[in-house]
């Protein structure tokens, strides 16, 4: 059973003066027990999709099921099984961590004992002990975001929607949160739908992704497949003791192009990993010393910009 199944889902916001089509007949299937990334520029429809799937927003047309339940008429079943974390979330400003989480635990119908145990576990796991007695208004953005993540996990959800979850977190804490999320998928079998502007994060976290732009899904698949379908080369930068007799490079497998630029040589290949040892051996046999070497893999950001650029045309 897929964790999420979306068929021709549309959402149009209407006021007296304007009409905005936030989602235009999107189709998507997300299997259980994975981190799935939804990537797109601002206003693409990522948050609208999450809001519909978490039942806080109703669709205009189409169908969506979450964990086998229909968002249109089985909202209660969905709500008790999912957790939602928004970036830059706000909470009761004069409550501390415990009071906020206690309230949300009660909203999910958890009894006192269960709440106490779960809050203690989350405070420990997300390293919130040092500020657990602070009021929300006295916390830094990073601390508040940790509360948002804890709140999304309070009900032991089977499916978690993370909308820009590491926004405002410092590098170390963001890494820690990502690690925890991956552990949840591995150990507890949860499914995560992640949206992020941070393409590195999507690349690290997600097994599958969908690119969304102007309310439409424009590409779907594994991050590597999406990159390779676009034919982006891996780039090797070399600083050498000599730049003579380098034509042998053109005969290496997957060669695309090369040029001398600034203080070095830049060569593009389909896959740097496949030729790098051969390249080094050839250099050595020709008595050319490699003074500096840098490999830049084709990244999702480039792919994303290319695809979004194309879809805007």
């Amino acid at each position: 059973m897929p964790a999420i199944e979306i068929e021709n889902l549309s959402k149009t916001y209407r006021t007296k003066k304007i009409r905005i089509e936030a989602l235009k007949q999107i189709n998507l299937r997300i299997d259980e027990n994975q981190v799935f990334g939804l990537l797109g520029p601002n206003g693409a429809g990522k948050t609208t999709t999450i809001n519909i799937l978490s039942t806080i927003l109703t669709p205009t047309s189409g169908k969506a099921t979450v964990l086998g339940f229909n968002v249109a008429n089985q909202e209660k079943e969905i709500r008790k099984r999912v957790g939602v974390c928004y970036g830059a979330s706000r909470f009761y400003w004069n409550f501390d961590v415990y009071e906020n989480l206690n309230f949300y635990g009660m909203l999910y119908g958890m009894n006192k004992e269960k709440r106490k145990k779960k809050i203690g576990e989350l405070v420990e796991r997300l390293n919130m002990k040092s500020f657990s007695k602070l009021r929300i208004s006295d916390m830094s953005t990073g601390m508040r975001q940790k509360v948002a993540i804890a709140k999304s996990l309070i009900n032991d959800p089977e499916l978690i929607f993370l909308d820009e979850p590491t926004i405002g977190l410092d590098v170390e804490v963001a890494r820690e949160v990502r690690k925890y999320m991956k552990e949840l998928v591995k150990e507890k079998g949860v499914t995560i739908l992640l949206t992020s502007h941070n393409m590195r994060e999507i690349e690290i976290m997600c097994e599958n992704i969908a690119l969304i732009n102007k309310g439409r899904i424009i590409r779907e698949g594994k991050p590597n497949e999406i990159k390779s379908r676009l034919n982006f080369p891996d780039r090797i930068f070399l600083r050498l003791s000599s730049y003579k007799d380098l034509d042998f490079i053109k005969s290496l497998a997957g060669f695309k192009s090369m040029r001398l630029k600034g203080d070095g040589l830049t060569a593009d290949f389909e896959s740097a990993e496949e030729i790098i040892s051969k390249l080094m051996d050839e250099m050595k046999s020709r008595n050319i010393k490699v003074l500096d070497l840098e490999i830049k893999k084709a990244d999702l950001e480039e792919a994303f910009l290319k695809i979004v650029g194309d879809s805007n045309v």
Partner: protein
Amino acid sequence: MFETVMAHIYKQYKKNIKSPSDLSWIVLYPLVGLLSLGIFALFVQSEAQMNFLHFVVVGVIVWYVYAISQKAITYGLSYDIWDECLRHTFLGKSTDEDTILGNSLFGLITSAIAVLILAGVSQLLFSFNIMIAGMTLVVALIAVFIFGISIGLMINSLILTKGYDWMSLIWMTTGIIMIVSGVYYPVEVLPNPIRMVSYLFPTTYSITAIRGAAGILSANIGLNLVYAMVSSAAYLLISFLIYKKSVRKARETGALLWF
């Protein structure tokens, strides 16, 4: 269901004990109202044809029961709007009925506390025991409480469908109820069109019934109680349906995500 209802009581309790301004609604404001108007009534008493002091004390107590119960419902939503965390409440397992019940129970507890304080103070300072109204007092105040909850739900419905600007109704309606329900004067002195409006509100009948039962004026107590209860029940039913519809509408328009 117990925990999801208790969640709303927990939130209100925590918010109130942390905020002197909110706590004042339950203790300080009713006392200020009772003392200022009670002392004023004491001053003009000699000129009045009836026991004006007792007349006003009944009005003040009823009005605060209305204000506190309405506040329990409207502030239940407002806390989420002011703290910009409304979406989290609607993402939980708690239903609309849980929300209404939880906030109403908090309103019931706090208005009962206010009544007890005001009854004690009026006995102590003005030698007036409102408890002599007996069961009439209980039934009439229940009708007022239900009316306060109903108006609160209607205000919340407007906020959810029309937006933040309608929040001023929270404070405006309490003033309107005070003017038209005969809190400080008999409704008979009101200009004719306003007097007609006053008969639409259960508070008018409840106040009259309690004044009658306390021997302040002659009134058909039973009839006033029936009017008060029936009209309150009608308000509650209508406001509940409107509220349910407005939450559905808010999920359509995305209003739950505005705050």
